[in-house]
Each structure stands twice: as structure tokens, then as C-alpha cells.
């Protein structure tokens, strides 16, 4: 290992299915204790990438190291250090929440306390309920609990909060922050950009199998993409002005109009709008490229 602090190290990874290229030369690192959010539209290759890192799929090319091990040759000791929350689950669930966690805890050398884990995902009142009788969001919490029961060094979360109500999502964020405090390295994929912004230290954006952007969560897209927007309305319609000095612009606007501008907003682009800008730009350049080739 060249960099012992990296828990995940991906170099020029490629994955093809016949003629279809799912991943086309992606490289990044996830440092020990870091939370890295992997973002991108459906079908961009996020799940393919995460399943290669989890050892479920083989790659076509490139180098991968997860906790110092090539996932294609990961043994049981390696698996004992991982926590995996898969994107979809549909088990028949003829066991109770408590039974399932107690059972899975026995697979690991140093598991978390079962009751504490159930409490951490907010299912204490459902501990004796069979999993099949739970709602979708509650079952997802069981998935998360099963992912963390083994006290993983590295936790994979593939769209963990799909189907959660807002309150459950906030509780889940608290749980993840607690895991971060304990030093767990986390690799997260999500469609909720606010979730990535809340939890992530860094983010990478994947589009059509390529990593189009990577960086600190509050710097992604570069400074230009984060320049605030002042927006107001007058008889001429809606106006927008991008400025790094919004207070100055608003003051000048007030002086010019001599009254309160209608519908005044100062907008700092959220991760979501930065993300949407990047993804649509990537899609547009791909279309241009296709036209040139045709």
C-alpha cells in the first residue's frame, strides 16, 4: 500500500458489459474516517462501482484496494471489517428485528450491543415485531442496523434513506454522525443532495460512467458555480444578477428603485443546483461529442 491512510483506493477502474461501458476510468480515494458521497443520475454507474468495492462484482480493468485488500480476493476477515447496506432488500422477514440482529451479531468478532443498535435506528418499540410486518422505511432501518452491527471500519450505504419520512431521515443523519464520530469511514450514494451536504466531507459526481467532479462538499463545482444570485421582479419581468457582493448589489438596487424591490431573493446555489448544473453540462458535452462523431 502506498497510502496507508486511504481506506478505499480506486485507480482507473473500468467495467464493461458486452458493448456497454458502465464505468470508464474512475479514480478516487476515500481517507480513513472520511465520509465520501458518490452522486450521479440513475444508471450513471454508482451502484456498479459500489458493488465492485463490496466484492459483489468483478471489474474489467483498473486497480482497487479496499482496506488494503483487492475486493475480488477479499476473505472472511476482510468482510468482518465491512458494513454493507445494499440498495434493495426484499427478504421474507419471518424473524423479529431483535432475532435478526442477534443472529447477525454472531457472525462478527466484536459486534455492537443489539439493543443499543436497535435503539440507535429508532426501532426499540418494534424490536419484537417480525420484519415482514414493518413499513418500508422501518425495514430500511433494519438494513442499516444490520450494516453497522459488526462495528465496521468501512461502511457502504447505497441509497440508505429512500422511503424515509423527513423525521426518520433526520434521525438517520444523527446515527451516521455518531458513526463518523466513532471514526467509521463511510461511502455513501444518495439521490438526496441535502443528505450528501449534511453528511459528506467530500463528494464525487459520476455521470455516464465517468467521474466528472470531485472535491470538498462545499467547494464542489468550483467558486464560479457558487457565486450568489440576486433575483428580483419589476415591470420588465424577472431579473437575475450573479455577484460575489450581493449586499452591495441589493443596496444599489434599492438606491436605484427608491423602494423595496418586488420578490427580492439572494440565493446561494445549493449543492443540488451545483450538481444539476454539472450533470446537465456533462450530458450536453456528451451529446455534442456524439454529433461530432456522427
Amino acid at each position: 500500500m502506498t497510502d496507508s491512510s486511504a481506506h478505499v483506493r480506486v485507480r482507473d477502474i473500468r467495467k464493461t458489459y458486452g458493448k456497454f461501458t458502465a464505468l470508464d476510468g474512475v479514480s478516487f480515494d476515500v481517507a480513513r474516517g472520511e465520509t465520501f458521497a458518490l452522486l450521479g443520475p440513475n444508471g450513471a454507474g454508482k451502484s456498479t462501482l459500489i458493488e465492485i468495492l463490496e466484492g459483489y462484482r468483478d471489474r474489467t480493468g483498473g486497480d482497487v484496494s479496499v482496506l488494503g485488500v483487492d475486493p475480488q480476493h477479499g476473505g472472511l476477515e476482510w468482510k468482518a471489517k465491512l458494513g454493507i447496506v445494499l440498495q434493495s432488500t426484499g427478504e421474507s422477514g419471518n424473524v423479529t428485528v431483535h432475532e435478526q440482529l442477534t443472529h447477525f451479531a454472531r457472525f462478527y468478532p466484536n459486534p455492537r450491543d443489539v439493543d443499543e443498535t436497535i435503539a440507535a435506528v429508532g426501532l426499540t418499540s418494534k424490536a419484537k415485531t417480525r420484519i415482514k410486518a414493518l413499513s418500508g422505511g422501518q425495514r430500511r432501518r433494519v438494513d442499516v442496523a444490520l450494516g453497522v452491527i459488526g462495528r465496521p471500519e468501512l461502511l457502504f450505504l447505497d441509497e440508505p434513506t429512500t422511503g424515509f419520512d423527513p423525521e426518520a431521515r433526520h434521525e438517520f443523519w444523527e446515527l451516521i454522525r455518531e458513526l463518523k464520530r466513532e471514526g467509521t469511514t463511510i461511502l455513501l450514494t444518495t439521490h438526496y443532495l441535502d443528505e450528501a451536504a449534511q453528511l459528506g466531507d467530500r463528494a464525487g459526481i459520476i455521470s455516464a460512467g465517468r467521474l466528472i467532479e470531485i472535491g470538498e462538499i462545499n467547494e464542489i463545482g468550483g467558486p464560479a458555480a457558487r457565486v450568489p444570485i440576486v433575483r428580483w421582479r419589476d415591470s420588465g419581468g424577472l431579473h437575475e444578477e450573479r455577484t460575489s457582493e450581493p449586499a452591495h448589489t441589493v443596496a444599489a438596487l434599492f438606491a436605484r428603485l427608491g423602494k423595496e424591490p418586488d420578490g427580492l431573493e439572494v440565493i446561494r446555489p445549493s449543492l443540488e443546483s451545483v450538481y444539476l448544473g454539472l450533470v446537465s453540462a456533462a450530458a450536453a458535452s456528451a451529446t455534442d461529442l456524439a454529433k461530432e462523431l456522427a
Partner: protein
Amino acid sequence: MNTIALGVTRATYETRVYFRQSDTIFFTFLFPIVMLSIFSVAFSATGNVGTNADGTGGISQAAFYLPGMIAAGILLSGVQNLAVDIAVERGDGTLKRLGGTPLPVLSYFIGKIGQVLLTSMLQIGLLLLIARFAFDVELPTDGDKWVTFAWVYLLGIFTSAVLGIALSRIPRTGKSATAVIIPIVLVLQFISGVYLAFSMLPEWLQNVASVFPLKWMAQGMRSVFLPDSFASQEQGGEWGLTGVAIVLVVWLVVGLIASRLTFRWIRKDS
């Protein structure tokens, strides 16, 4: 925790789940018992089987069907139960999840085979109790017969279990599992002397059935539970226990190799 201890943990977990599934309880666990009851009652008016010309001897319909039902129970508890169960677990993501944990594959197998052994011993025990007390079937008193019973049973149940694991690869989805597996098991029961007396089948069909293990399990069980006078109706005119042992061992080895070669937590890259 070592592989064996985890396997035992899996077996208790699996057995608990087994008894919570009403469909497996009926179509696997209770099925031979239900069938024995139906046959015994339906054919009771036909009188005894193998009665002498002077009206003596012969055994009741329940006694005649008991060995076949025991063999069917072994096949259902092993092949049908595991082939469907594992195919469903592959389809619903259970195996994928287990594959992401440090559970050894061998512990998973020990758990499945342990579940088969526990549930099938209960099933056969119940079948014998019902035969004895509800249908008044005389059970063997000779110790040698019970020794034969023990080895035919153990060889049969392990063979069925590993064949179930191997066959679980065939259904493409969990939903199609019962539709793929049950016809195989059902046809075998009809041609192997479970529902129809083996001696009344045409010779070519008997030869086809002789390739598969169920015919030999049923024959071994007949040697335990039927009077020796019935041996003359077997192919070759004797109980043929050497043949039973050879065919079952061959299938056991085939099943072990097939399971070992084909089992994967998930279908990679599908």
C-alpha cells in the same frame, strides 16, 4: 466463533424460520402424513394387501403405504425444501446479504442440512406415530430392521439435502422456484413406488426410476416395514440393500460435487 458453531447457530435459526412458513409446513412437513391418511382411508374398503388365498396374512393399506411415505418425506424435506428455499433466498436478496458478512459458506450449508435433519426427524417420527396409533400399523420389533432403517434414512436424508442445494441453481428466479422444483419431485414420487405400487409399473419405467435415488430409498424402507414375503415383488426378487447403498452413495457424491461447484452467494454480473 468457528465454522461448526456458527453452523449450529444457523441450524436453529433456520429451523425456527421453517416452522413460521405455513406453505412449507403443509407441502413439505405434513404432506406425507396427509397422503398416508388419504390413501389409508380411501383404499380401506379394498381390504388388505398380499392376503393369502385362504384369507390369512396380508397387511393393511396403511402398512403398505407407510414405507413409500417415509421415503417421500425424506425427499421432500431434503430436495424440495432446500431447492425451493435456497432459490427463494437467492431471489429475495438473503444470499446477497449473507455474502457480504463474514459467515462462512460451510456454516450456511451446515445450517441448511441441520434444519433438514431436525425437521425431517420430527416429520418421520410423527409419521410413525400416526401410522402406529391412528392406523394400527405394526412396526418392526427386530433390532436389525431398525439398523437398516437408520442407515437408509441417514444416507437418504444427506443425499436429498445435497441434491436440494445443487438443484437450487436451476430456477432462474425465486418466484419460479416452486413451479420448477415441485414437478420434478412429484414425477419421481409417481414412478418410484410412493403412490403407485412399484411392482405394477412397466419394466422400462422401473428401469428409468432406478436411475434416481427415491426408488432406492422407498425400496430400503419397504425392506424395513414390509414382511419378508413381499421381497419377491421387488426387481430381482429380493430387497437389494447393496443396490440401495451403492445408488444413494453415488448420488450423495454427485450432489456434494455439484453443490460445491455451483453454489455462489450471488450470480455475479447478472
